[in-house]
């Protein structure tokens, strides 16, 4: 069955309908809300598979369906759907992972009173995310983008009665808004420059050669090509949404939301939206590479941001004690990898890593959710421990996810995608620094994941909750198993043949030389990381929750700085926070002193006029009015005598008057 | 100056002059014309009308007579007893015996009664019930009075029933009669609404108020077998069911016969009536039922149209008669099967179920028509949509109907 691109809107429309159902369902309708959400997601998954089939018929084609949203004057704003392998792969991933997370949620959120609301928000989120994927218009992307932001705000703050959750939701919303401002500016500039926001429109779209050549010939301030400037502005949005340095601060705090939300939004899909966006507008981002003497290329900035984020995230993750926070910083780090890959020119590698990361990170988060659920919402890894024998299935799947994330060779998909990125970085002509950053992060990733597994699953149970943990129910473990299988199976996308790369970018030559040297180096580094982790944490497992971390005792100040996440929050509070507070103070003072003074002066003037007025009124006007009123009152009294309230009297008066009127008319007419 | 009123009464018979397809189809007309020509020319128009009236009276008078015996025998069968079987062969002379009994009975009028009204009530109810027959098309050429606004006429004439019930209840000078009359009126008024609302879609789709044209609009067959009757469309079927229920209530038939529930109320507003006046009321009720069934046949069951193209050789009035009898038998069956409704249940049924359903059915019919106009795929797609529009509201409103109604409780009894 071929899938028509006109029907692509159905993919986001199904979850949207489910969200509507969820919103209209009363609190008791748990089965209906969850059933609708899961059914819609599975339906979208089927549709996405059909779309993927259609897209793979001719991978190089961009199937589009454009239509006019509204016209103002001679301008017409167009929206549209786009189907190409990038869209299709992403849709399949989002709907598949989404379905599993939805199913997992039915188990995880079982006791929550606002179960139906939760599924309404989840569906809304999925709809918005799929909207980003199928859009053929930057405007539609932006709209969906903001909807995603809204849904993520609602979901992070789902337990809004917790002050931390409410604060985290606000933080996430405001931080991403800062990036989105850049996105909006870039969007407006793009519309100003090209008159269109469609990606592909038979040669007139903004990602097509004609428009791009126009964009790179113009320059703006600093000698930047217009395309570079627009690309960087849009990249601001991606920084915010994908948690890149320096706007990464919201992502770890967002872990206050329910764990399935963390899995869905802050690991698998939403944060990937930024990466997807850059991959989508890659022709625009890379347009300035054609200019020989550009002062700076947009992709160079992307690379720098990505490399810094990758290394920084990995460093901070080493010193975190909250189970979900470790995973959150690893997400930051992995997103940095993806950005790095985009920057060095291999968007295919970035998308490959995005796909594999979505699976194993969702697996890790759901595994973490399973642990947290079993341990009565205990998230501190120091207070867990010894869970491996109690939760065998969770442990096994979590270990698969951990090895995929750490890049354990050959069997796990994470290894292949990470290799692709490192190779791309190696092949970057500009600098080898990103490769160095990436390799360092590889060691750290293997290290902190080993630490996490060791702390959580080995050793002695260090709290009451951990002692009495037991395996979760099937609604939670089945998605784990499925995700684990997918994590391993996704290796097939890259090996033995680079199938995904051929399908995603068939025009590019895919004979990226697999230098074996680099692969061996990275395998060795993974081994170092794993070994170090095992040596420090497995050899002598932690015995009590209060014992200091071995690293902490070795280098207290460095560990402390990392544990405080390098003080970004404090830095922002001290700089931007203080600045805005001062500005607010200033505005307040201005209001009070300057405007307040003016108002008081006017008021005094008014009061003085009032006094004068009153004198004049009492002595001059009132006397006249009094006598006038008296006359009126007398007249009114006389007139009210006729108002008897007797309907008959009125009727009679009317009749007599009518007779007189007709008489006058008849006599007048006869004359 | 000739009176337009007369031309109004003359006009329909022009249609009867059109030669029919078969001799049988035309046979009643031929017979009438032959008889009319026996009279001198100036009197012919009068005889013409009189003979029509007499024919309607005779046919439906006899029909009424045999309807009563059929009902009693059928009810007997349904209740596992024999029914009247003493008078004449198989008891078929029973209605005539009853008639003689009613005529010879003493006519008791309460002393305090409003004598004139007490007398007028049965007369009015009976005459107006008979008047409704004037616009029913009994056959292709058989319609006593072809009016442009026939459906309106039908209901206008039917309105007098309410008046007569009020007169009967009030003139009896008996508070129970009056109370029962008020209850009966409340029921009639409540059920007139769904009744009229189910007629509206038919009128809307056929674009005419003339009964003959409504029947003509239902002519034709799909593949020569399935007729184009309204009852074979989703909205028509739903409308027919609502019409049936409302017609049951309008004619005080069981299960809606609480106004005169014999076993509970000593005949309601008819308490103070006896003898022939009571018989007149009884007769009017059956006339009303026959007329409403006739209207139902006309509006929904294709009137005198044959059910299949191959059955057209049977004269149209036979088809009308068969359908009428079938529908009346259905009503008798319902009477023998269902339990009587309490008055509050009865009102609730009308206002909370039938009226909203009829209103939705109106929309459904409009949708059906518009989708049919578009043609093509819409003409097929309208079927499931229309069925859904008919069934889903029924389920939705039906589920709400019983809500809040616990089992019947008795305050003063254990």
């Amino acid at each position, binding site marked *: 069955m071929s899938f028509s691109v006109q029907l692509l809107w159905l993919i986001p429309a199904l979850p949207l309908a489910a969200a509507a159902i969820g919103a209209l369902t009363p609190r008791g309708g748990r089965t209906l809300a969850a059933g609708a959400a899961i059914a819609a997601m599975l339906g979208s998954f089927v549709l996405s598979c059909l779309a993927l089939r259609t897209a793979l018929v001719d991978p190089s084609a961009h199937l589009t369906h454009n239509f006019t949203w509204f016209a103002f004057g001679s301008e017409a704003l167009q929206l549209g759907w786009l189907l190409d392998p990038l869209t299709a792969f992403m849709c399949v991933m989002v709907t598949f992972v989404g379905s599993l997370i939805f199913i997992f949620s039915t188990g995880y959120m079982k006791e929550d009173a606002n179960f139906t609301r939760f599924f309404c928000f989840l569906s809304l989120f999925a709809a918005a995310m799929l909207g980003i994927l199928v859009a053929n218009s930057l405007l539609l992307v932006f709209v969906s983008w903001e909807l995603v932001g809204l849904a993520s705000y609602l979901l992070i703050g789902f337990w809004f009665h917790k002050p931390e959750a409410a604060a985290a939701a606000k933080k996430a919303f405001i931080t991403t808004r800062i990036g989105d401002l850049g996105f909006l500016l870039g969007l407006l500039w793009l519309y100003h420059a090209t008159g269109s926001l469609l990606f592909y429109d038979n040669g007139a779209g903004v990602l097509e050669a004609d428009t791009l050549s126009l964009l790179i010939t113009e320059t703006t301030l600093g000698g930047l090509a217009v395309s570079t400037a627009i690309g960087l502005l849009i990249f601001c949005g991606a920084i915010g949404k994908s948690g890149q340095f320096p706007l990464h601060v919201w992502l770890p705090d967002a872990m206050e939301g329910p764990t399935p939300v963390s899995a869905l939004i802050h690991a698998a899909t939403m944060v990937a939206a930024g990466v997807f966006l850059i991959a989508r507008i890659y022709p625009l981002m890379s347009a300035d590479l054609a200019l020989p003497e550009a002062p700076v290329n947009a992709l160079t900035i992307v690379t720098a941001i990505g490399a810094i984020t990758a290394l920084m995230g990995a460093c901070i993750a080493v010193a975190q004690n909250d189970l979900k926070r470790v995973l959150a910083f690893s997400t930051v780090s992995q997103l940095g990898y993806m950005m790095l890959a985009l920057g060095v020119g291999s968007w295919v590698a970035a998308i490959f890593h995005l796909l594999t990361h979505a699976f194993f990170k969702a697996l890790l988060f759901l595994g973490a959710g399973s642990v947290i659920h079993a341990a009565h919402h205990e998230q501190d890894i120091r207070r867990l421990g010894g869970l491996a024998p109690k939760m065998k299935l969770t442990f096994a799947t979590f270990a698969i996810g951990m090895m995929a994330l750490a890049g354990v060779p050959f069997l796990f998909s994470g290894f292949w995608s990470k290799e692709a990125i490192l190779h791309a970085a190696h092949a970057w002509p500009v600098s080898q620094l990103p490769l160095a950053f990436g390799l360092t992060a590889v060691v750290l990733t293997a290290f902190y994941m080993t630490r996490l597994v060791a702390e959580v699953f080995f050793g002695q149970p260090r709290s009451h909750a951990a002692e009495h943990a037991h395996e979760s129910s099937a609604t939670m473990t089945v998605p784990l198993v499925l995700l684990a299988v997918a994590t391993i199976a996704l290796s097939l996308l890259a090996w033995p043949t680079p199938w995904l790369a051929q399908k995603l970018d068939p025009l590019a030559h895919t004979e990226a030389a697999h230098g074996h040297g680099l692969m061996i180096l990275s395998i060795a580094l993974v081994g170092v990381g794993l070994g170090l982790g095992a040596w420090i944490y497995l050899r002598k497992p932690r015995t009590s929750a209060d014992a200091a971390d071995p690293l902490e005792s070795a280098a207290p100040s460095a560990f402390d700085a990392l544990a405080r996440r390098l003080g970004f929050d404090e830095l922002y509070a001290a700089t931007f926070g203080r600045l805005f507070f001062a500005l607010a103070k200033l505005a307040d003072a201005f209001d009070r002193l300057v405007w307040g003074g003016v108002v008081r002066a006017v008021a005094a003037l008014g009061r003085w006029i009032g006094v004068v007025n009153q004198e004049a009124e009492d002595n001059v006007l009132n006397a006249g009015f009094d006598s006038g009123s008296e006359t009126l009152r007398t007249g009114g009294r006389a007139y009210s005598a006729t108002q008897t309230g007797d309907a*008959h009297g009125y009727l009679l008066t009317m009749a007599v008057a009518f007779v007189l009127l007709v008489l006058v008319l008849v006599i007048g007419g006869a004359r | 100056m000739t009176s337009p009123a007369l031309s109004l009464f003359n006009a329909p018979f022009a249609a009867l002059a059109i030669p029919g397809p078969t001799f049988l189809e035309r046979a009643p007309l031929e017979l009438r014309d032959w008889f009319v020509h026996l009279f001198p020319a100036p009197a012919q128009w009068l005889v013409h009308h009189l003979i029509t009236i007499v024919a309607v009276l005779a046919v439906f008078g006899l029909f009424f007579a045999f309807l009563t015996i059929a009902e009693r025998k059928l009810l007997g069968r349904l209740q596992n007893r024999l029914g009247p079987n003493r008078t004449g062969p198989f008891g078929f002379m029973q209605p005539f015996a009853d008639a003689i009994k009613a005529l010879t009975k003493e006519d008791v009028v309460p002393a305090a009664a409003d004598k004139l009204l007490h007398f007028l009530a049965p007369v009015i109810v009976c005459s107006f019930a008979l008047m409704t027959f004037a616009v029913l098309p009994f056959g292709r050429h058989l319609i006593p009075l072809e009016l442009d606004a026939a459906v309106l006429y039908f209901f206008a004439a039917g309105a007098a029933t309410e008046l007569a019930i009020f007169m009967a209840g009030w003139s009896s000078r008996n508070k129970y009669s009056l109370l029962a009359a008020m209850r009966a009126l409340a029921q009639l008024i409540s059920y007139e609404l769904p009744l009229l609302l189910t007629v509206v879609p038919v009128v809307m789709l056929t674009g005419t108020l003339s009964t003959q044209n409504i029947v003509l609009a239902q002519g034709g067959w799909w593949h020569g077998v399935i007729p184009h009757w309204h009852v074979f469309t989703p909205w028509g079927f739903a409308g027919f069911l609502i019409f049936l229920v409302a017609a049951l209530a309008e004619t005080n038939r069981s299960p809606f016969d609480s106004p005169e529930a014999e076993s509970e109320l000593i005949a309601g507003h008819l308490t103070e009536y006896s003898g022939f006046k009571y018989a007149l009321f009884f007769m009017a009720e059956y006339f009303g039922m026959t007329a409403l069934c006739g209207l139902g046949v006309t509006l929904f069951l294709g009137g005198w149209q044959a059910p299949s193209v191959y059955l057209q050789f049977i004269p149209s009035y036979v088809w009308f008669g068969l359908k009428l009898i079938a529908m009346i038998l259905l009503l008798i069956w319902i009477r023998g099967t269902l339990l009587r409704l309490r008055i509050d249940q009865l009102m609730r049924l009308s206002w909370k179920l039938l009226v909203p359903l009829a209103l939705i059915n109106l929309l459904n019919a409009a949708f059906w028509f518009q989708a049919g106009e578009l043609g093509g795929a819409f003409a097929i797609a309208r079927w499931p949509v229309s069925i859904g529009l008919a069934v889903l509201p029924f389920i939705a409103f039906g589920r709400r109907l019983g809500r809040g109604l616990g089992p019947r409780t008795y305050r003063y009894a254990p």
Partner: protein
Amino acid sequence: MNPLQICLLISCGLFAIGLTAALARSNSILVLLGIELMLNAANLNFIAFWRFGPSPAPASGVIFVLFSLAIAAAEAAVGLALVIAVYRHQKNIRLKEASRLKG
């Protein structure tokens, strides 16, 4: 005499009877009925002019009467509801006594 004039005279008579009743009777229901009669007289005029008047528009008279009927129905419903409300308030429906706006 013109048939139109006859019709108009009938309607005059009906109107006058309605008015007289509305003025003479003290019972508010009868007053309302008198007013209904006056409305009917007006409707009679519409039909008379439609039928006999010079070059009538095809349906205007009829349609006017239809609207007028609807309004008469609304008037009767509201009027009689008011009568019932008044009765509940002052235990009779003599119009003379319903002369205060105070509840």
